[in-house]
Every structure is written in C-alpha cells, then in structure tokens.
C-alpha cells in the first residue's frame, strides 16, 4: 500500500470518528471513537515527526479516552441504569427526539466538512511543508470539535470537544514544530483535560472536603 493511500485512510478514519463523537448520544461509542480517532492522528503526525515521537499522541490519546471512559463508568447514575444521552439523563430515551437531534448534528457536521475542504487548499500556501491530508484532517477536527463545544455544556461533551479541537491543532502544529518538550507538554495537556473532564463528571457526586 502506498503512503498516500495510508494517509487517505487516516483522513477517512478521522472524518468518520469525529462525526461519530459529535453525533453519538451514547458515551461508550464516543469514547471508543475517540480512541480510534487518535490512530488517524498518529498516522498523520508521523508524516512530520519520527514515529516514536508521533506515538506519544497515540498513547496520550488512548489514555485520555480510558480516563474519560472510567469516569463515566463510575458515575452513580449509570450504575442505577440511567442512560446518559448527549450529556442528559433519561430513564426512557425519547426515540423521535434522538433521531431528529442526530440528523441535525449530522447536517451541521457535513456543512463543516464542506467548508473545510473548500478552504484547505488556500491554507497550504500559508504553512510551508504541510500536506493537504494534514490540513484537511486538522481543520476538520477543529471545526467538528468547536461544533461539539457549541452544542453542549455537559462535562463529558466539553472534554471530548476540547480533545477533538486539540487533536486537530496537534496535526497542524506537528508540521511546523518538532520538539520533544512540546510533544511532552501537549501530551500533558491532553491528559490534563481528560483528568479534569473526569473530575468534573464526578465532582457533583463527591463528598465536600471543606
């Protein structure tokens, strides 16, 4: 398989997983998609970085997903059989509402994809040495992540949105900056956001220490 085809597959993975994170109303699907998304990020970052350094993104991303997944799994409401849909709790999920919300989210996501594809070729002139797959993937993740942030004010969705935006930024930034310290700090920021997301998910149920 040629490298170009691998990068195209990575782009497709990123496109699908970011849309699934945005559209899905089930936190399990979102967290698994996040883990898959970082596979695409790893492939596209490895265009500019050595694979050993690019693997830091993969590991940090998977750990972030694991932290958020564990936090959701440990939430008391879930243990009592309450589903968390788009950050809201329903004892009995209203089916028509789910379909219409998912369709609306999908439509806005498609609009972002179209906008990203249309502007990506212009951006290529601004950042020397960056590949078109990296630009499309980076902007796509930033766009869908911002949509995710705009659509919800629940802790899990905000954490997922921020991680998605950062993943997009990391693909773009990898093309211009190769540094072990930056890789380490960005991994720290990713893990920090996941840890803070986990804290915010569970903090209402924690005992006040004051």
């Amino acid at each position: 398989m040629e490298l170009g085809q691998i990068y195209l597959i990575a782009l497709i993975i990123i496109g699908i997983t970011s849309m699934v994170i945005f559209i899905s109303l089930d936190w399990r699907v979102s967290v698994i998609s996040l883990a898959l998304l970082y596979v695409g990020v790893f492939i596209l970052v490895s265009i500019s970085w050595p694979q050993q350094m690019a693997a830091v993104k993969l590991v940090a991303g998977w750990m972030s997903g694991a932290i958020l997944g564990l936090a959701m799994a440990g939430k008391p409401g879930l243990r009592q059989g309450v589903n968390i849909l788009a950050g809201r709790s329903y004892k009995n999920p209203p089916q028509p509402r789910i379909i219409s919300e998912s369709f609306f989210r999908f439509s806005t996501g498609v609009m972002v994809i179209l906008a990203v594809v249309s502007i990506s070729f212009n951006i290529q002139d601004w950042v020397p040495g960056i590949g078109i797959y990296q630009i499309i993937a980076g902007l796509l993740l930033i766009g869908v992540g911002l949509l995710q942030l705009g659509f919800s004010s629940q802790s899990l969705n905000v954490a997922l949105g921020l991680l998605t935006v950062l993943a997009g930024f990391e693909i773009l930034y990898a093309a211009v900056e190769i540094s072990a310290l930056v890789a380490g700090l960005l991994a720290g920021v990713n893990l920090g956001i996941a840890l803070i997301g986990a804290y915010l998910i569970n903090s209402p149920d924690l005992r006040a220490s004051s």
Partner: protein
Amino acid sequence: MNAPIVWIIIPGLVAIVLFILQDRVKFVNSVGILLALLLGLFAIVLPIGQTITLGMLSFEISDTLVVLGRRFVISQGDTALIALMYFGAAFWFGGVIFAKTTRSFIPLALAISATLIAAFSVVPFLYGPLLFELAVLVSIPLLALPGMGVSKGVLRYLTYQTLGFPFLLFSGWLLTGIEVSPGNSLQILQASVLLALGFAFLLGVFPFHTWIPMLGESAHPYNIAFVYYQLPIAITIYALNLFDQYVWLRSSVTTHSILIIVGITMIFVGGTITAFQRHLGRMMGYALIVDIGFSLIAISSGLVNNESLGLFFGMLLPRGLALGVWSLALVVISSKVVGGNGIPTIVPSSLSFRSIQGIAHRLPVASFCLLIAYFSIAGLPLMAGFSVRHAILDAFQGSNILSQTLIFLGMIGVFIGGMRTIAVMISGTVDSGWQRNETAWEVVFLSLGSVSLLILGLFPKWFIPVMFYVTESFDHFGP
C-alpha cells in the same frame, strides 16, 4: 543549584506533598505561607549568577535549567517578577484561615504559581502558553468544588483558555519566521492576528469575557479572586516579554491602537454592565474586566514611556488587596446568608441582591469593607485604586473625545453599581436594630485590609515607586 529549581521545581514538589497531606490543615497552611514568603524573600536577596558565601559554604545559583533540550531561564532581571508572584501568593495563602475554602487551596495555588513562573521563564518563550494551559487545568478543582454542580462558567473558562493557547503557539512559530525575514508583511499580519486572538481568549478580552462574571457568580469567592489576580498578571507579563523581545511589535502603531481600543471597550462594556448587575460575585468579575481595560491602556502608554509601564505594575497591589478584601467580605456575607455552614458556593444566589437586602444591619463590618474594596477598584478618589487610575489617564496621550466619553461612561457605570449595592445593603426596616454578627477575627482581618486600602489611597507614593522596580525586567521599553 539553579534558579528554576529554587522557584519552579521545589514549590512544585512541595505543592504535590502538601496536596497529599491536605487533611493536616494547620501544617499545610503554615508550610504554604512560609514557603511563599521565603521564595519571595529569596528572589529579592539571592543574587543569581554570583558566588554566595555562607561561612564555610560557598555556592552559586545559575540561571538555567535544561529540560528535554529546552531551557528554563530565571535571570537576575526576573527576580522582581518572581517576588511579585510569590508575595502575592503568600498574601492569598494568609487569608485562607478565614476564607472557609477547600483544604486543597494552598497546594493547588502553589502549583499554579510555580507553573505560571515556568510559563514566562521557558526558552524559547513560545512554549509558555502550554504551561499556562497546565496552570488553568490545575485551577479547575478550585473553581468546581467537590459535592457541587459544575457551573457553565467553569466549562466556559476551561474552553476559552484551552482555545487560546493554540493561537499563541502558532503565533510563536510565525514570530520566529519574522525574525529571519522581517520584511514579510503578510506573516507579520498573520502573527499579529493570532497573537491578538490568543491573548483575547486568555485575558478574557471582550467579547471573550463572559467566563469572568459567570465564575464570579458560581465559584467560591476567595478561590475565584485568587484566579482573577494571579492568572491575568502572569499572562500580561508574558505579553510584555513578547513586546520587549520584538521591536516591530512594540513600535507598531497598530499594536498601540489595538491595545487602546480593546482597553476602552473593556472599560465601557464592563462598567456599563456593572451598573445593571444584581449579584455581588458577578460585580467583582465585571470590576476586574474594567481593571484589565485600564491595565491595557497603561501598557499601550508604556510602549512609548517606561514610567507608564510602571503604572501597570502599580495597579497590581491595590487590585490584589481590593480583591482579597472583597472576596473575604463575600465569604462572610455568603456563609451567614446561607446559614453558617461554611461553604458559600452551595447557594450562588446567596450573593444576589434579593438575598443581601438589609445585610448591612446584620453584618455592618463585612458590608462596609466590601464597599471600600469595591470603590477602591472603581477608582473613587482617596481610595487605593484612584492614584494609579488618575496617572494612567493622565499618561493616556492623544485621546479623543469619544475615548474620553466611553471611559467616563464606564467609570460612571461602576459607580452606579456601587451606589445600588449600598442602597440594597441598607434597605429594609431595622426591627431588631443594628447587630454585629461577624466573628472577632473576621472583623480584625477585614478591617486590616480596608485600612490598608485607605492608607494606599492616601499615601500612594509609599508603594508606587516600589512597584516600578518590576519594570527593570523589561530592558527595551520606553523611547
């Protein structure tokens, strides 16, 4: 031994140990206050890069620590900034005893201070925003306390701060390119736009200011006041380092104009909205927005005049003291309104005008001290904030009638907000007469803070020249 180990690594490690030992409240408080004071004192007395002899012992504190091929540098010129940060932290740690805040306040606040210092000492400086983001992440547990709901303000704060740092990282890369080819006007434009956006997100510049009042309403008053104080200082110092390093950025007319326009907008928007607020915590947030607006004007004047830059640092002492007194008064009022359970943020509405009607009859000292802090930040004559505000407006050259009108309207808005607060606090009938329900220690601490604000207002020459020393960290400012 080197300086970054003393002022970044050691406080960072101590913060981790104190976090683990947070149940031992007195020990954690004592160590935190003592360490912050010592680090501030060391910054003043220890010479960096020179041999120090203590009896038989002789050693030198070098200025550089290498981490993963990059450097953290704290030179002799930075010591005034370090002292400012750690004395500020010690001040906030000192109030913890009366602030009824969480046990993790001192460990987390110490870690935030160390990370912020790391942010403006890393070389190349473009990695600084990543460390700001880490400091923001550490501050979240202070703003969303365990056992309480997560407010939208916390999520917005986290979102805006996280969206801000990528802009600064990218602008850092562009700035490096501009150093190589200074004539590239497109690259200069791109870097300027990215820088402006990055700082707008981080500093809460209009229209990205909404998290400031939202947090003021929902977070613990003392914790948010600490974040209000420490974070903007560190980010502004980082921005000043940028101006200091890049002559084209410092001498650009556009930079000067943007700072003035944004500063005036923040004063006008913050001030006018304050006039219509009905929550004491939100008012504290809007008052900070107005103060940041004035600091931007001071910096814009400082680009051409080093003394005006000193005015920016001159604002910090009155701001810190006023925020401290204001937040402590809010804690006292909120805990008494809720019912003395000691956790003021359980009911954010406890600081709404509806809840505090006639509160001055029950808590006269806390109410009076809150008003002194309020009018100090508002810049009322003879209060601590007045002299510096007056000097900033005096140094604000070339202002037109529109700018002056907007600033005037903003300041009037803040005053109206203060007058409304007084009216609400003393409203209602006094059936049981005036009573004092504050504890003796609360009265002593609040009174000390308020008297200090009055003394700073009456004798500004005692403190403004001291704050001017901090400007020595910036070599290239001025004509």
